[in-house]
């Protein structure tokens, strides 16, 4: 067993993130695998961005992970990593910035040395900075805003719900703020936030017995610091449904909507809402009510899902990436692109199912099945050592046992009454932020505020019970007045 220099969190033993600044914490999952995963998680992110510099945390992380070190140019690093077939992958969210690398144990020494120097001894070269900043602006303007309507809608939803809040800007920042950033800004952020107090060292696989102590010692060169302690106010309340339509020349209409919830991993109602979310719309599986009623029964689109934790890049990933833990979360429904003629109906259909679930609750049979699913599905989430390690780090952050143990224990005590009570307590369908990406924004606004029904068109006959339900859905009150709808040209999104 490894003896760390500071505290050791090993195999499900959890500790609170409120621990003292006594040095980096270590989460260790040693095994016999020839693959070794290193996850270095700094508990800092865009919530710690200065108000005038949105995107600084992300750009600092990207600069470290995609640039040269004090001694090596980026080209030399790329060349050195190449024979090992590995890279340092970096990603940054509101409260965490994560550097992750996986290597064969043959190459552990060389790989770790490079990864360590990228974080402890960055090169801060101007040409690296120009490239990394350009990449970030392009990721914002082109990859997200230009080419991915679904992710654009999901990200805008978060930014609207958290307007005026430390979570209320895109992690990547704004084009204007990025244009004004300097290497000095990044160095300042690095000095203040890349501290021992903010670091969790995660190790998994067949590394040597002395390795954890070596890593801990190396990273003790960082300033001791204090943990990031950004105060998070409650998100502003939503008095009634609010709709933002991002006007963009695109073929179909992408929808996302949701509301803030006071529940995160470790909270008493987490398991209840997880069961409800899974039943309503388990990500990318065909089992959810939304998928079943909207796609399978009606053929409205490619899929419809629900979330109680942040899940970026869901169109590319079947399971969530760990280490994007947050102190505040939202409930969200994602409606994949629909034909413009059915846009209003699709929104109402999702709201209808949400309403129905809140009002009627889950049945005992649905509850039992979903509970069984989740208690087994957790094994799928942690199927690789890298993922298991990521979840263990998140558990340390939330102050809970290993996620599988935590969830199974919480589910074992749960009753259908708990879930149905939590649904009524935390969710509602009349105080939502709604976001659409649509070509004809004015027509969509008119359709949803006129009070007229928004009927669906089918290519095939439907059973009478479906048509009867459609009559209710197409007139489902959304409570939207013209003044509740904002139209934003896509060119303005993420600019300032």
């Amino acid at each position, binding site marked *: 067993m490894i003896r760390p220099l500071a505290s050791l969190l090993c195999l499900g033993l959890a500790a609170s993130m409120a621990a003292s600044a006594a040095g980096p914490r270590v989460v260790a999952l040693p095994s016999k695998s020839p693959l070794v995963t290193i996850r270095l998680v700094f508990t800092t992110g865009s919530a710690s961005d200065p108000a005038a510099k949105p995107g600084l945390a992300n750009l600092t992380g990207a600069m470290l992970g995609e640039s040269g070190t004090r001694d090596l140019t980026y080209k030399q690093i790329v060349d050195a990593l190449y024979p090992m077939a590995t890279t340092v992958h970096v990603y940054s969210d509101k409260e965490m910035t994560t550097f992750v690398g996986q290597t064969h144990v043959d190459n552990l020494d060389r790989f770790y040395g490079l990864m360590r120097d990228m974080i402890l001894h960055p090169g801060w070269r101007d040409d690296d900075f120009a490239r990394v900043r350009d990449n970030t602006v392009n990721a914002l303007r082109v990859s997200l805003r230009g080419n991915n309507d679904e992710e654009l809608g999901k990200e805008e939803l978060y930014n609207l719900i958290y307007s005026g809040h430390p979570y209320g800007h895109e992690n990547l920042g704004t084009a204007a703020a990025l244009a004004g950033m300097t290497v000095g800004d990044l160095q300042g952020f690095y000095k203040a936030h890349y501290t021992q107090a903010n670091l969790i060292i995660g190790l998994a696989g067949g590394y040597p017995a002395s390795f954890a102590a070596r890593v801990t010692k190396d990273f003790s060169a960082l300033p001791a610091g204090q943990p990031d302690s950004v105060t998070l106010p409650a998100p502003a309340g939503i008095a009634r449904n609010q709709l933002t339509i991002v006007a963009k020349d695109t073929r179909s209409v992408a929808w996302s909507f949701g509301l803030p919830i006071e529940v995160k991993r470790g909270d008493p109602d987490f398991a209840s809402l997880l069961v409800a979310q899974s039943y309503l719309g388990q990500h990318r599986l065909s089992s959810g009510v939304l998928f079943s009623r909207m796609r399978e029964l009606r053929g409205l689109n490619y899929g419809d899902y629900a979330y109680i934790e942040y899940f970026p890049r869901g169109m590319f990933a*079947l399971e969530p990436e760990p280490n994007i833990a947050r102190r505040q979360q939202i409930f969200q429904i994602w409606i994949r692109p629909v034909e413009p003629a059915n846009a209003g109906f699709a929104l109402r259909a999702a709201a209808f199912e949400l309403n129905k679930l809140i009002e009627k609750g889950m049945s005992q049979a649905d509850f039992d099945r979903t509970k069984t699913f989740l208690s087994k599905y957790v094994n799928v989430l942690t199927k690789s050592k890298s993922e298991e390690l990521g979840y263990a780090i998140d558990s340390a952050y939330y102050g809970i046992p290993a996620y599988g143990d935590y969830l199974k224990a919480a589910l074992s005590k749960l009753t259908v009454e708990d879930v149905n009570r939590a649904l009524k307590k935390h969710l509602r369908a009349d105080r939502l932020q709604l976001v659409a990406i649509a070509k004809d924004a004015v027509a969509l606004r008119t359709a949803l505020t006129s009070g007229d029904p928004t009927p669906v068109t089918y290519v*095939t006959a439907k059973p009478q019970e479906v048509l009867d339900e459609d009559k209710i859905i197409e007139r489902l009150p959304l409570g939207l007045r013209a003044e509740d709808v904002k139209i934003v040209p896509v060119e303005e999104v993420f600019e300032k």
Partner: protein
Amino acid sequence: MRLTGFTPAASVLCLCAAVASSAFAAGKIFPYNYVQEDLPNGLRLITIPTDYRNIVALYIVVGAGSRNEVEPGKSGFAHLFEHLMFRGTAEYSAERYQQELSSAGAASNAFTTSDFTAYHTTFSKEDLPRILSMEADRFQHLSVDEAAYKTETRAVLGEFNKNSANPQQKLYEVMRATAFRAHTYRHTTMGFLEDVEAMPNEYEYSREFYSRYYRPEYTTIIVVGDVEAKKVRSLVDERWGVWKRGDYKPQIPAEPPQDGPRTANIDWPSPTLPFVEVAYRGPAFADESPETAALDATARLLFDHSAPLYQKLVINEQKLDSLNAGPPDNLDPELFGAIARVKKESDVPQVTKEIIAAIEEFAAKPVDAKTLEALKQHVRYEFVLRMSNSEAIAESVARFVALRRTPEAINRYFDFYAKLTPQDLQRVARQYLTEKNRTVVTLATKAVTK
């Protein structure tokens, strides 16, 4: 235990290799013991026990992809079928099927490529019998009525719609339609939009498609994880042994040799950075000769992050923000392509010239041996690192199984890779990466000046 009474496996291969602690220890690159068995009806079963506990990954590979869509107006049916397979049977309605998957805690999905369709499910080991049983049922007894069929065609249109916001999808479509004129690789797995829109009227054809390809001789079952091969075999015998063999063989049109360079340009309706793709007509996948390995090596040496061209255009001059390449690895001759995302539209012509010039230089001058050795090391470690869990192993195996129906193709392919010489790379580049075989497609918000 064989309940259906058919004869034992026609052939059983038990291929063993020690799991090496070093990726470079002697032996085959695929480190797992596996059992490969053929049932008398033509179904193939590959079982791979691993040390990853509790979890089983099941891949069912059907050797039918968009390549098999031979009739005009019928593009996209392999992919549509991937959807229809979740629509239920007499025994397991779609709803019951999903309930069973849920109670198994299973992650289940499917995907379609040019050459094959794969159905994959990852779940706890105790649920293997019922999952194999349910899968046997839907592969043999799918029952989709016309109304459900039509509804599913709209979900496929929805998938087309969600892809349509991405200009790379359009680039992909136009490249294929430009580079191919006869072969079914001319269309994407999604199919032509007009064919997708017409799908609701093709119910009878969908039944024909199922009858042709959802047959044991087209299908390979791959089971990876916390399993015993004998028990898996007896479960498969029980429910899959009675599946009837078919006799359909598609006549896939051969693509005539390309008669000269081709170009196309796409006007994209909304703001984007421009793209350029430079592609060459390549060969079919080969594990009996070095061509595929050589073109993979060529793509990496020319376009990976450490390549001189990448360093010049992305890192130093910063004219591009991405540069990627893909070598051909399909059943029939495919494209070798490189895609660049260009920061300024005015740089597109120059970037195109530089990509072509780098390819020509590669064919003219052999790569140095040290660079090639570093690449070989990279490729070997990359493969080993990918084997990080049972699901990942199953997916890697499935891609080779789709080509040769055996994990041994992995070993054969990597053996050729290990033996590549600079002269092999040069010879293959001179053979395929020629002006006559080239197609260039550009995409920009407005027309790119040529």
